[in-house]
């Protein structure tokens, strides 16, 4: 049955997430202005809060599915702050890759480590098939050489899943992912990036110089080079079907905070955003705000739709990209629009709106830019391969 009502258990969980998020928000400005500091793994207030995730127990088939719930909870967390958490969970993007591509033995060995994912290089971002970093087999060891940038949580992570080519002449088919633990000789974290937003989140640069790792650290264990188009690379890229809607949810939580702040400020100024009347009965400010609210709803529903498909084991390649594309453009327009509506007050660092405006901008860039998502959607709806539509 098509339905959008939350059950009592759904609401209890989301309310709990929001209560924590509001506490995290009180730390938001500090970590924004002190970029060299890392938020703690646990806030001092954590002792007063129950474990939200324990509330997953006792849920039934009548409650909203886990994938959809996790999107709503993600948005609930970032509604408080992008980076500060009451309790920081383990796990990074590299853990998602390990789950998607690792052998059972590899999963068991590294599951408890927080793993970052290192794909981007100074010369390749949206086109990961252009990876220059090399891995050469020498006896029972791989020797890694190259440079990686924009590694999310790259400083805090205990290990990294890194993409390198074992045969440049094979193009994308030669690209494999390797697990490298922190402390391996030849693997250096060179610096932490200074950014427009999401400043409490560490983004690292790595250099690998004759870094030797065991042969068994090739993720998935397959050392053969598949024939072009045989799907090996596509398999690796599938990791992103799971993460893209989540990235949109992260941005949408922040955008919702911006909308809530703007609505409250308008109310204080005596402007209530009411629904029901047509164009003639409303001011331009209210119309503009309603358009932003509609964008938020539309984008959030795209995210939930994609997660719902995944909950029901239905293919969601197109929909995951729709969620990311729609989310990425919506959060930009929403935060830009909120500032436009509130005027000079909105750009003051007394308030968090200017920070949210900076924080969400990355949504349409990382994990595949809006353009890359549109390329994927277009290929899907047109039935074109990546060679047919470049």
């Amino acid at each position, binding site marked *: 049955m098509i339905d*959008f009502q939350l059950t009592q258990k759904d609401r209890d969980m989301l309310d709990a997430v929001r209560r924590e998020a509001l506490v995290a928000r009180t730390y938001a400005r500090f970590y924004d202005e002190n970029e060299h500091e890392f938020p703690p793994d646990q806030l001092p207030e954590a002792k007063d809060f129950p474990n939200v995730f324990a509330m997953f127990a006792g849920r039934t088939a009548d409650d909203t599915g886990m994938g959809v719930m996790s999107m709503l909870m993600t948005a609930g967390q970032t509604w408080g702050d992008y980076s500060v958490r009451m309790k920081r969970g383990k796990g990074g993007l590299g853990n998602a890759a390990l789950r998607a591509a690792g052998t059972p033995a590899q999963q068991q060995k590294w599951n408890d480590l927080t793993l970052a994912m290192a794909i981007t290089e100074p010369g390749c971002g949206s086109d990961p098939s252009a990876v220059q970093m090399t891995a050469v087999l020498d006896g029972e060891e791989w020797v890694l050489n190259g440079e990686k940038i924009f590694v999310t949580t790259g400083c805090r992570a205990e290990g990294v899943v890194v993409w390198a080519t074992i045969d440049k002449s094979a193009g994308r088919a030669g690209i494999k992912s390797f697990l490298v633990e922190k402390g391996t000789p030849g693997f250096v974290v060179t610096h932490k990036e200074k950014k427009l937003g999401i400043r409490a989140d560490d983004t690292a640069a790595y250099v690998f110089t004759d870094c030797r790792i065991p042969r068994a650290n090739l993720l998935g264990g397959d050392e053969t080079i598949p024939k072009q188009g045989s799907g090996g690379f596509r398999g690796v890229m599938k990791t992103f079907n799971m993460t893209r809607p989540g990235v949109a949810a992260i941005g949408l939580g922040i955008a919702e905070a911006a909308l809530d702040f703007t609505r409250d400020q308008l109310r204080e100024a005596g402007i209530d955003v009411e629904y029901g009347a047509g164009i003639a009965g409303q001011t331009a400010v209210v119309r503009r705000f309603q358009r932003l609210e*509609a964008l938020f709803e539309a984008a959030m529903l795209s995210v939930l739709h994609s997660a719902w498909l995944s909950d029901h084991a239905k293919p969601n390649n197109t929909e995951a990209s729709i969620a990311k594309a729609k989310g990425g453009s919506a959060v930009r327009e929403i935060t830009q629009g909120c500032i436009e509506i509130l005027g000079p007050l909105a750009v003051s660092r007394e308030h968090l709106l200017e920070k949210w405006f900076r924080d969400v901008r990355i949504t349409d860039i990382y994990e595949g830019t809006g353009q890359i998502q549109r390329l994927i959607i277009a290929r899907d709806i047109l039935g074109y391969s990546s060679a047919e539509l470049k």
Partner: protein
Amino acid sequence: MISFGPTEEQAVARDALREFAVKAMRPIARECDEASAIPDSFLQSAWELGLTSTQLPEAFGGAGEARSPVTNALVLEELAYGDASLALAAVAPSLFANAVLDHGTDAQRKALLPLFCGERFHAASLALVEPSPAFDVLGMRTAAEPKGDGFVLSGRKSFVPLGDRASHFLVVARGGVGFGFEALDAFIVPRDAHGLAVSEVEKNLGLRALATTTLTLDRVEVPGSARLGGERGIDARRLVNASRVALAAVLTGLARAVTEYAIPYAKDRVAFGEAIAKRQAIAFALAEMRIETDAMRHLVWKAASQLEHGTDATKAAQLARDYAAEECMKIADNGVQVLGGHGFIREHPVEMWYRNARTLGVLEGTVTL
């Protein structure tokens, strides 16, 4: 529980309507538009699908299925995918019948609902819109003054679907004082009421096949029993919300029609030695059309689901309608652009959809859930 899955019955209904849209609507849409007329045979075949009677109670001759705004939203998207004018004509009687079902007294239901459960198409219509600039439903001018046990109605209503053949009109008017939904009432006015003048069929930019008329009410006297809902009146907020969501569902179907037409065209059309769909300028426009059509549909579903639960759908309905109106216009606009010159000539349906998108985007009360 949040779910995007239609029930099995809904999926069956949707698929049946999708087939009807392709087989019975698309082939005649252009000639109906050119002729500004819809053949009776089409209205009859749509009638036989049970669009109006399925959700009317068995006591009045209906099939007695649960009243479901969500099912109706699915059905409307499919019908509008076939053709928006034909869709609005086919469901116009439901506007009237559903309003009587949802808001009417027992006596009104008993008197009127059996009209919609017969074997032959029966036209009745809702008169909501008025021909004033920047019309706003909350600012309507048609007024109902009490007189004795009854009322006197004065004002003008436009864009009344099937006004050329409707047996009854449901005229929405300002009854009480104030400026809100609470001040609105609806009155059952038979076609032959004294003082009611029905215009010739209107000539409009789009939805040309749909016969719409203007009603002039010159002190039309109706008895107290003509007031829908009797003493308690109507829930005008619900009526308007249901109409807005329905319109958004129609816009979604239209947007999908444009998108699905533009895709094969762009793959077929060669320029500079390859299909234009292989150029990002075109491919991205098509991707955008798909993204927004999905978004429109989800907003419709959310609002329809609130109507189904009986919770206040005012915000969701307005967001769905406003968003659908804006995005459908962009999609139709892009559809014309993708087809280029072919989007401008009447050999292809895209120019008709462009006109229909602009027309639908400014309406209220031509369709309901």
